[in-house]
């Protein structure tokens, strides 16, 4: 075989270099013939690969774990990882064999999925969605007895924005234009700066939007994306799946998960030394899993840093409505950049929003959008193309995205019930966050920063050496060991900190604040009791 390869290589090189001997020819038509030889060489290189590996590849079926895309094998997604599988198994046990475990139900605190834990949807949004899904009842008089008047009116408005009123048709790949107009108006009202509906791409939740940006930005493993550590594992998974490199920057737990520019500079320099081209900076504000809300001053520094270093700012702003402390407010990065005088030309910025979080918590709808600014028209064309391969995002999710950015206003029939529902949910979340935070801080060896926003607490546990040793002997990360013990003892599902990344040698877990308020006291006492026993067992 070697001889065969050598022969092919030789003829390739001979062909490739022949024109070189004629400098005039080379100058005049370099582009076309070089392209030709470039592709020949590339083909030659792959041919060597298959020559050497064909024998082994022919005998194994195509979809075995050994022959899958290595990027798929490499990526990890802890939010639905091993602990969740264990939880599902325990749940089945409980169904088949009630009383087989020391708890009656599994409490899923692993994932921000509020309605699965009993949070009720906002009535007005659901009325409008139901009417848009079944528009033939809009004209019937009985409908007025079942739905609020402004929901009927809103459904008509939305249907008029849908071409042909066909909610069952594929839409424009960026999303229905009229709905994007509504969203742009909502952004404008929020920020006080104009928003262009053509900058908005509606997506099936925020996650596909993040994937799309990673796909666009990452060319090879030498391309890096800056991510906060601890981070939401969507980012690490998406970067791995697209074959890039995650460049970490650590949030400072001691200052309430602060984001220091000096840390960014240090990590950027380190990455560049390793030959990584850092292309973008991910900021999650309010933070997931860390719950901090960035101060406006800090945001300005981040914008300045991205501008100086030529980074795309990827702003994950899906928790923008989830803020629980009176002294903090949400400011979108776009608003901050514009208020600094930076326009479209100065900084490429993507803001992600979702219908899954906020007070609405409509995870199952898979609605969301990204607002893309500061990109050249050619690049935007490419994003549009990526969107068009999947045709469009689901229409119900699109309608909901427009509703959350344009809820009922003062004077609308539904306004009172809407704002009562909204305030009820947000105030209750704030109380739950506080209760759980206090409870965690009362545990031996546990410290927990305040959840200023988002839906999570991310306590640090000082695990005794004995527990760490025990975990190691079981080949588990110590925090994963703690989480599985917690689950087995109480039915509470949390995600070990190692899934999010943490300063080496520190251990955490992420727990949502979403269980219904009446269940919180029981959770606190179960957690406290478990932790005490765990410490008694392992205390050094």
């Amino acid at each position, binding site marked *: 075989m070697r001889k065969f390869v050598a*022969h092919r290589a030789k003829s390739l090189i001979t062909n490739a270099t022949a024109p070189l001997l004629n400098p005039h020819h080379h100058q005049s038509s370099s582009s076309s013939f070089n392209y030709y030889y470039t592709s020949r060489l590339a083909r030659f290189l792959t041919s060597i690969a298959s020559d050497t590996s064909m024998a082994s590849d022919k005998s*194994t079926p195509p979809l075995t774990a050994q022959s899958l895309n290595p990027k798929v094998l490499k990526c990890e997604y802890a939010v639905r990882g091993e602990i969740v599988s264990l939880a599902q198994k325990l749940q089945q046990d409980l169904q088949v064999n009630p009383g087989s475990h020391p708890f009656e139900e599994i409490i899923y605190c692993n994932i921000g999925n509020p309605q699965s834990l009993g949070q009720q949807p906002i009535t007005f949004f659901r009325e409008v969605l139901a009417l848009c899904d079944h528009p033939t009842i809009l004209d*019937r008089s009985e409908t007025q007895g*079942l739905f609020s008047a402004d929901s009927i009116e809103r459904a008509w408005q939305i249907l008029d924005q849908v071409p042909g009123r066909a909610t069952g048709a594929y839409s424009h790949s960026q999303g229905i234009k009229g709905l994007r107009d509504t969203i742009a108006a909502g952004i404008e009202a929020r920020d006080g700066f104009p928003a262009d509906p053509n900058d908005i791409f509606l997506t099936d939740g925020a996650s596909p939007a993040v994937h799309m940006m990673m796909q666009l930005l990452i060319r090879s493993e030498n391309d890096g994306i800056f991510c906060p550590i601890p981070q939401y594992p969507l980012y690490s998974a998406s970067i791995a799946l697209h074959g890039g490199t995650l460049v970490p920057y650590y949030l400072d737990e001691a200052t309430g998960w602060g984001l220091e520019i000096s840390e960014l500079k240090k990590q950027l320099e380190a990455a560049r030394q390793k030959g990584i081209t850092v292309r973008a900076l991910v900021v999650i504000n309010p933070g997931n899993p860390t719950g901090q809300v960035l101060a406006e001053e800090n945001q300005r520094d981040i914008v300045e840093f991205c501008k100086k270093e030529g980074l795309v700012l990827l702003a994950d702003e899906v928790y923008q409505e989830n803020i629980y402390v009176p002294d903090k407010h949400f400011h979108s990065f776009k608003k901050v950049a514009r208020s600094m005088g930076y326009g479209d030309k100065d900084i490429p910025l993507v803001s992600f929003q979702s219908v899954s979080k906020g007070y609405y918590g409509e995870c199952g709808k*898979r609605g969301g959008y990204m607002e893309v600014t500061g990109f050249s028209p050619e690049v935007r064309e490419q994003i549009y193309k990526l969107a068009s391969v999947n045709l469009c995002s689901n229409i119900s999710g699109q309608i909901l995205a427009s509703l959350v950015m344009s809820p009922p206003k003062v004077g609308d029939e539904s306004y009172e019930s809407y704002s009562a529902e909204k305030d009820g949910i947000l105030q209750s979340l704030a109380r739950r966050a506080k209760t759980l935070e206090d409870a965690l801080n009362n545990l031996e060896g546990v410290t927990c920063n305040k959840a200023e926003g988002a839906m999570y607490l991310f306590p640090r546990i000082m695990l005794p050496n004995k527990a760490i040793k025990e975990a190691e002997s079981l080949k588990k990360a110590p925090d994963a060991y703690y989480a599985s013990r917690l689950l087995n003892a109480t039915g509470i599902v949390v995600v070990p900190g190692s899934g999010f990344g943490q300063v080496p040698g520190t251990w955490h877990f992420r727990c949502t604040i979403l269980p219904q308020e009446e269940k919180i006291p029981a959770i606190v006492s179960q957690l406290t009791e478990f932790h005490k026993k765990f410490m008694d067992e392992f205390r050094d």
Partner: protein
Amino acid sequence: MNCRRVLGFGLPFAVVVFIEPWIKASCGHTEIVKELLQVNIDLCLFEGKFLYIWPWPKVAKNDFSDARVLSSSATTLFFQLHESDRFRKLLIGLPYSYNKCNHWLGIMSAKALDYDQINENVKKAQYAVRGELYLRASELQKEGKKIIFTNVGNPHALGQKPLTFPRQVVALCQAPFLLDDPNVGLIFPADAIAKAKLYLSYTSGGLGAYSDSRGLPGIRKEVAAFIGRRDGYPSDPELIYLTDGASKGVMQILQTVIRGQGDGILVPVPQYPLYSAAISLFGGSLVPYYLEENANWGLDINNLRQSVAEARYKGIIVRAMVIINPGNPTGQCLSIDNLKEILNFCYQENLVLLGDEVYQQNVYQDERPFISSRKVLLDMGPPISKELQLISFHTVSKGFLGECGQRGGYFEMTNIPPESVDEIYKVASISLSPNVPGQIFMGCMVSPPQPGDISYDQFLRESKGILESLRKRAHMMTDGFNSCKNVVCNFTEGAMYSFPQIKLPQNAIEAAKSAGKVPDVFYCLKLLEATGISTVPGSGFGQKEGVFHLRTTILPAEEDMPAIMESFKKFNDAFMDQYENNIGYSRM
């Protein structure tokens, strides 16, 4: 970092440097390469990201005598490129050049989102269904012209009414508080209410909660029962994954299969451009096999063998084969014998078969009803039925439902090992869950009202009405095309499309070339401007060289069809007259 990949090996034979194009513009590249690699070279050859260097004295003498060393070096290069750890070590082994790179970067950093800085695979992907023609049609529509969109299989956009029952069920699931309202029965039938309650009981928190990443277990059970009834073999719900439309499923699977450009996927040509676009995006190689237009777009197994042999010769490992049955854009329905041949072929060649069966309800003739690849496979018995890897796709967007906007779909896996299924689960879990309303539509599709249910008659009337009308339209369209000058069209046996061949006169081809257009794009643009009919040129789907087609859907309303075909004929025949070479006639 300006230098993405630096690979030095076996000098003085060849060096391949992958380098950013902007450097070319900014400095003399030979100088840069010298600095980078710390070697003496005389000339390098440059294009795009690739930089080739040969030491001049040897090139000048055309001296490649030591081919053995050359080959081992080239092999080393390849492995360095593909084994990332060793590749990294190589990079670290060049500290000086690396620092230099960083130095340059500091001076002239290119912006992350400059066009030449984004992922090449993204740029390479083509998606014709929403390409130039569609954009021009949208423009014309904005200008107030009446456009007939026949470019996308999007039935509701062309006036097809949604089936009542599924919409009632989903509306009730959206607004569960209605279920407790004593007046709900005034506008919703009892069986829709019962179905909504059943589906809500499958969820953990209604439509607003993420479901299992594979889809609601209750719906997956209904899908499994549907497949079991269809094929006569039970199906395992654990091997059925619900997705946001079939496209998402196809992309998930291709992402799992494709490791790099050495991996090939066999795709029919003409093909639905989702496949070419997705394969480009994931960096694989599309291996085409041509369908035979003269044989009613049949699939010739010898053709397949030849395609695989050619790909192998190019060094591509063919890993999967896509079949679209009924065909898109070609509309043919595969026979049992043909499917058996395909399955045997995949078995011999060790390919996973990806069966795009989204048009399984859209069949407009009775000689060859739809038969799933899974049924044929299981009928064939062991060993093939126990070993051949098969993934089949389905959707709520086609059939009589036509609910494109809901993004509901599923794929079913046969003979896929559990570890691989787990990996596919993991990738699905990163996107959390498919949209739940789309899952409910899927449920309504696979378990529709039964005889005796209140909604049964209406459901049957509506769904039959749609399919019967589509059958009529398929005939009207094919006959219409075949009555046009220089147009021949196979009958649309299934799916939603007509794919006539347009025999363009030489003059029209010349005119297209001078306008800088592919000939069929030229024709379709003219058609659009003259009639408002928005089609997709055949070049977007792939076709044999020198042969031109266009794709239209058969979806315009039945009553509009005669006028559309008449307006098409008028345009086409005038176009043909205009460009046909009349010199011969005048001489006669």
